[in-house]
């Protein structure tokens, strides 16, 4: 399977990207790590007229910490997320999730910006950004704007990004004192896209949780914030949780747009979602005791 032909444009600065987009009349695509784009090209599921290579734009790299906020450059590789001391200290949820993304050779090239813009509903990192209430810093020919994570993911492979824009970095709040994070996915083989996955953050105090953020992935056409469950569990003692019909109803409502995939039916996904929710809540409690 060989890609269809395309023009190759190397961008050295963000302005080069806008220039290239304009020249190509919207028929150009950005290539960063290429780990999601190249398979599409090789299988001829995508045939853009031009590729804009942004790997050389220094402004898109780097992880910086200031005032309780972490800024991650869009070009940060997954392997860098795993080895970064800042990520380990301030964003332990990302450190938990990143090793589950594919395999080492993929993580050496794949970027966080690429993963977020590709917006595969089965991906781990979009769910993390959503759970952490991240902000996407976006640049376009008309200027810069910020889009909150909750408004960024619009559907399968669909984001709030227009065809002339580029994500430059992601801002995330550093973990607070008393905050606990958890990650769980049901996966057939290590590194696969999950059958169902869940990330969680919450303020723990004596077995009760507040400010609970629960985001399911691989259940629908985008990561799903389980806000009703979170509301239901707010200030509840989750270390002695007993599942009842109210929780069932809340979960059903949160997962009202649940879809099947080629291997797993809706009923199975629903069951697995409930199962990992219970496990994640236990993990939150355990995490808070460390």
């Amino acid at each position, binding site marked *: 399977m060989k890609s269809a032909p395309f023009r190759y444009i190397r961008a050295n600065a963000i302005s080069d990207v806008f220039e290239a987009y304009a020249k190509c009349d919207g028929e150009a695509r950005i290539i960063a790590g290429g780990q999601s784009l190249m398979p599409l090209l090789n299988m*001829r599921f995508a045939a853009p007229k031009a590729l804009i290579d942004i790997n050389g734009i220094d402004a898109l790299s780097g992880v910086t910490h200031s005032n309780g906020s972490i800024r991650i450059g869009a070009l940060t590789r997954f392997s860098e997320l795993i080895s970064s001391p800042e990520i380990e200290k301030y964003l332990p949820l990302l450190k938990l999730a990143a090793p589950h993304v594919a395999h080492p050779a993929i993580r050496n090239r794949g970027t966080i910006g690429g993963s977020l813009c590709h917006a595969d509903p089965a991906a781990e990192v979009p769910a993390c950004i959503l759970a952490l209430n991240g902000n996407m810093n976006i640049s376009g020919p008309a200027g810069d704007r910020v889009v909150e994570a909750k408004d960024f993911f619009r559907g399968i492979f669909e984001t709030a990004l227009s065809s002339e824009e580029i994500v430059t970095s992601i801002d995330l709040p550093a973990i607070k004192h008393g905050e606990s994070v958890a990650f769980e996915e049901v996966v*057939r*083989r290590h590194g696969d896209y999950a059958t169902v996955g869940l990330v969680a953050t919450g303020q723990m105090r004596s077995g009760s949780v507040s400010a609970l953020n629960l985001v399911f992935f691989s259940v629908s056409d985008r990561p799903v914030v389980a806000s009703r469950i979170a509301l239901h569990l707010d200030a509840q003692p989750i270390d002695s949780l007993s599942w009842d019909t109210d929780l069932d109803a809340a979960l059903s409502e949160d997962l009202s747009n649940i879809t099947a995939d080629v291997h797993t039916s809706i009923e*199975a996904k629903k069951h697995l979602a409930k199962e*990992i929710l219970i496990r994640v809540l236990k993990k939150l409690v355990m995490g808070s005791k460390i």
Partner: protein
Amino acid sequence: MKVKTPLSVLDRPNSYIGKSNPRAGARQLLEGRGVFVDDLNLPRMLHVVFCRSPYAHAKIVSINTERAASESGVVRVVTGAELVDYCSPWVGVLTHLQGLKSASQHAIAVDRACWQGEAICAVLAETRAQAEDAAALVQIEYEELPVVVDMETALDETTPLIHPELGDNLCFQREVNFGEVDKAFTDAHTVIEETFHFGRHTGVCLEARGIVAQYNPATSQLTVYLSAQAPHMMKNLYAKHFGISEDNVRVICKDVGGSFGIKVHTYPDEMATAALSIMLNRPVKFIADRYESFVTDIHARDHRVSARMALDKDGKIKAIDMDDLTGIGPYSVYPRTSGIEANQIVNLTGGPYTVESYRARAQVVFTNKNVMCQYRAVGHPVACAVGEGLVDAAARSMGLDPVEIRRRNLIPDDAYPYTYVTGLPFEKLSHHQCLDKILEMMDYEVLREEQEKCREQEIYRGIGFASMIEVTNPSPAFYGVGGAFISSQEGCTIRMDHTGGITCTVGVTEQGQGSDAVVAQVAASAVGVTLDKVRVVSGDTDVVPYGGGTWASRAAGIGGEAALRAGKALRENILEVAAIILQAEVASLDVQNDAIVDMADGTERLPLSELGRIVYFRGDTLPDGVQPELVSTRHYVPKAFPFSFTNGIEAIHVEVDVGTGIVKLLKCWVVDDCGTIINPLLVDEQIRGGVVQGLGGALYEECLYDEKGQYLNATMADYLVPMAAEMPDIEVGHVETPTTDSELGAKGVGEAGTAGAPAAVMNAINDALSPFNAQVTAMPFTPERILRALGKI
């Protein structure tokens, strides 16, 4: 006990039989210096890409190649109708499978496409990328035809016929009836009834299928480089279907990146590639990409088996009754036919046990999915799962330990020769010995105690056994009698050069399993040289003796025996000359460690290189009438039995997460009896690889089709193969019961691991789920299927 004769190679000094020497052939592979088909580039070579049918069943209304043909780098665009002049169609039938019928199949479809992915048009260009660009521009008009995808209804009156001229969608049916089945069920104490489903899956060789074909018009010689298992078989078929002389066809198999039976069949796109090289007088290369592999490599094991087992009050099996249905593709694959898998299932189910009555019906029906044919362990995984699944279900029902029920039913080790109820002749098997050994290896009692303790903690572990038999070393009874030009004999030529080094050429082909190494070890032992002095050449039909290739676990047993006999003959020739040179009696001399020695005490008399120098350069110093021949060829065909059966047992320990349905494989044990073991390391690795491949089909792999015959998961992200993180360590033990049909006594072992693994893991999962009275019988055992069995959804 090994059979010992004075001249047996098994107990010659410095014999390599039973030694785990590393393979010489692995060295180049470790450095990325092997030669696989895609590594070959010939001058003026073209790449061919096939336009493939997007529909499972469609009439080809028109093909417009004008635009494609004018694209940059494109040399020619060829339709099926044009290729007919260069390649005749074929029908995949054999006479010994009575009633088996199929329709005529072209290399490139002519009137209609019968499965999604069938080749419709060939585009030849200077690069693969250019050919793909042009292929997208070929305009093909299709008229969709009704699609048959459900094997359960393929024979219904209302189901459309795929080939109206055949009268129905039945490819093959076989019925057998032995003993008194109905009476056995009426009188039975316990009757177990189950329906088993086996998901269609495929080989996924890491190196996809590939061919480079070159026709020389000056010599009328066709040379084909092929990633495949049976070069002589293909040589015959190329000649037959291209209308050229078979003696002018040369097939060369170099390094093969995995085959497992996938690469022993005739593929239309490969035939087309070779025919195109004749049409164009230029070399042509075709390498299947991964998508093409999924939709055109043969699939296998799509079966639904409804089965019953009757047992008496002591848990002794009285009868087996079963109905097997399999849905193959629209054609029976050529030349080995798509009836063999079902045929094996009918023959082999319950094979480890003393069963008095047996009835089975197998139906093989056509569908508009991809073709199906022999894949590693052909039929055995299904037969074993059915038999072993029924046995374990019986054990659970009767409150018997699965070990105990097997003790009561496995053919006793002293009952041989024994003929199984379906007519299978067993020379000598060792079921009980293997069972004893595996129980020791796994510390069975301890595992059961742990299982109990774990259950109290709501951790659900299970142990599953699978006793098995395996068909190896096939005689002409397998294919030859049915009219196929597939050789069951094997030949080996061994030649000593003046250096004292020997070169063996042999008809079995190296697929990575180590057949070259096995031949080298046998040859070195039989002749009396050190292993480093042995070279093996295989895979080239111009060079090697006429042979059968690698399939049905025959390389060690049959190829090895041919090498043994050739080695012995060469040794005799060497000793004859040595006796003359040394003025001694032949019987007083031996060849050991690259030298002529005194048989009595091993004293070196003459290095082989010195003998070689005299023979090749100083023939003047030898007496009149002495014409030494330091080369011997021997052929061997198994005679005493239609197959050499082996036996073994597998056990798997699992932990099932009853909340998610995920199965964790904790450990696996295998005890196998393949007769004389030539290289224990290679044998163990074959077993391990076989087990993992079997686990793939049982837990992960399935070719998924929708109701329109569209293949849904043709990527390696969606078709799940076993990877390292989920696979267990596999401990292997052996019992050795050599066959007396050969001096080497070696049986085959390539497929045993795959035969038993699905049964063992099914039994393990069901053992883990037994506290819930839940059972799974449909493979692959996905988390969803397990959750449904548990009633969670």
